[in-house]
């Protein structure tokens, strides 16, 4: 039996500290230790993107990050997008454009979209589709998601 480590993280701007096994998956640390259940697990193999979070400024699949590699990192999860009850422009746009149907891919999709708009504030449809290509959705056919990201980008410019 391995010893647990004290894992120190900044999650959505708040310092957090938990004891976990070094190879515990970041998605489990978030969901089970930190009770941040917004981040979802859809496959456990880095394929569906439902567990996407931002780690030190870059999006990652949290199912593929062992806790020990997140030591000292800064994380953004879906819970960190809104300012209290005030929706992030992307959340607003997903809500307004029906970008969330069953909603299970939505948290990861939002984090990937947020990352896309930071890197590329005025994406065309092709760039949006590429930026979200690591996040699988089975409900929407992606049309409303693409529209939502486009609307959020245009809103940001206005």
């Amino acid at each position, binding site marked *: *039996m*391995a010893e647990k480590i004290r894992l120190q993280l900044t999650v959505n701007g708040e310092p957090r500290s938990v004891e976990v*096994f*070094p*190879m*515990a*998956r970041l998605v*489990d640390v978030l969901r089970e230790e930190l009770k941040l259940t917004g981040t979802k697990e859809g496959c*456990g*193999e*880095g*394929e569906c*993107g439902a567990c*996407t979070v931002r780690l030190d400024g*870059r*999006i*990652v*699949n949290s*199912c*593929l*990050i*062992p806790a*020990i*590699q997140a*030591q000292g990192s800064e994380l953004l999860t879906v819970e960190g997008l809104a300012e209290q009850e005030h929706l992030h422009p992307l959340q607003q746009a997903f809500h307004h454009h029906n970008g969330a149907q069953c909603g299970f891919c939505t948290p990861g999709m939002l984090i*990937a979209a947020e*990352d896309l708009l930071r890197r590329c504030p005025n994406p065309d449809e092709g760039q949006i589709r*590429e*930026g979200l*290509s*690591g*996040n*699988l959705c089975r409900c929407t056919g992606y049309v409303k998601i693409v529209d939502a990201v486009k609307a959020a980008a245009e809103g940001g410019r206005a």
Partner: protein
Amino acid sequence: MRGYVPGCEVKVPVTLAEALDVLAAEPGGWRPMAGGTDLMVLFNAGRMPAGRFLDLSRIEELRGIWEDETTLRFGALTTFSEMRDCPSVHRHLPNLVKSARATGALAIQNRGTLGGNIANASPAADTPPSLLAYGAELELVSLRGRRTVAYDAFHQGYKQMDLAVDELVAGIRVPKPQGLGFHFYRKVGTRQAQAISKLCLAAYARIEGGLIAEFRVGLGSLAPAPVRARRAEAMILGKPLTALQVTAAREALMADICPIDDIRSTVHYRRVVTANVFQQMLEELAHA
């Protein structure tokens, strides 16, 4: 989650020397781990036993891209995203940019590393064909010293490498193509993104005085490990651009590969499409 998490120990060296000490002290006792994008998939699925892992991700010496006049050198921990974002790589090694973009999707590219892609030794990895085409070399280190091996001699069979249990891949050196170059990369995957390759072909040619002065083809998913198409290359090397023997080279290529039927594709498809892609490449080369 099918891996036995409580049974796993992890060491996190912050210098290369520390890491090499661990490997030397208990050869084979610690499994190196970089971005984790391959390893964690296996571990999560219960296809890798619990054990002891050596997390290399904090070793700064293994990071970074350097260049001089003749060479680009990648620290083993260079991520796919770093390759995608580096202007020098775009300028000199466009195939490597394409292969980095073709690996998984962005969240994978942000974590997966070039060294990991090599040492994981998957025949389906996306960067090795490009590295083979560019004539890359690997820097291998251990407490016993540092050595350089040609990348095309590194893979020796399925998951068999010229890498001792106490050694690490520290860096990848890729010569900068000089003169008039031709670059070609084509991954045929299971879909357009977030895909594993059914086959992959990267080629580099240097053209001098209307002749093919240098020519290498790297192949993925067509043999137990990434391989060069040596027989096909031989048919093309030294020939004038205007008289490439496409049919003969295509046939020679079939002797360079030994694809298998698996859950992603078939032997037949792989052979036919590899030949087609190779021919398309030669046609583009002829017009280069």
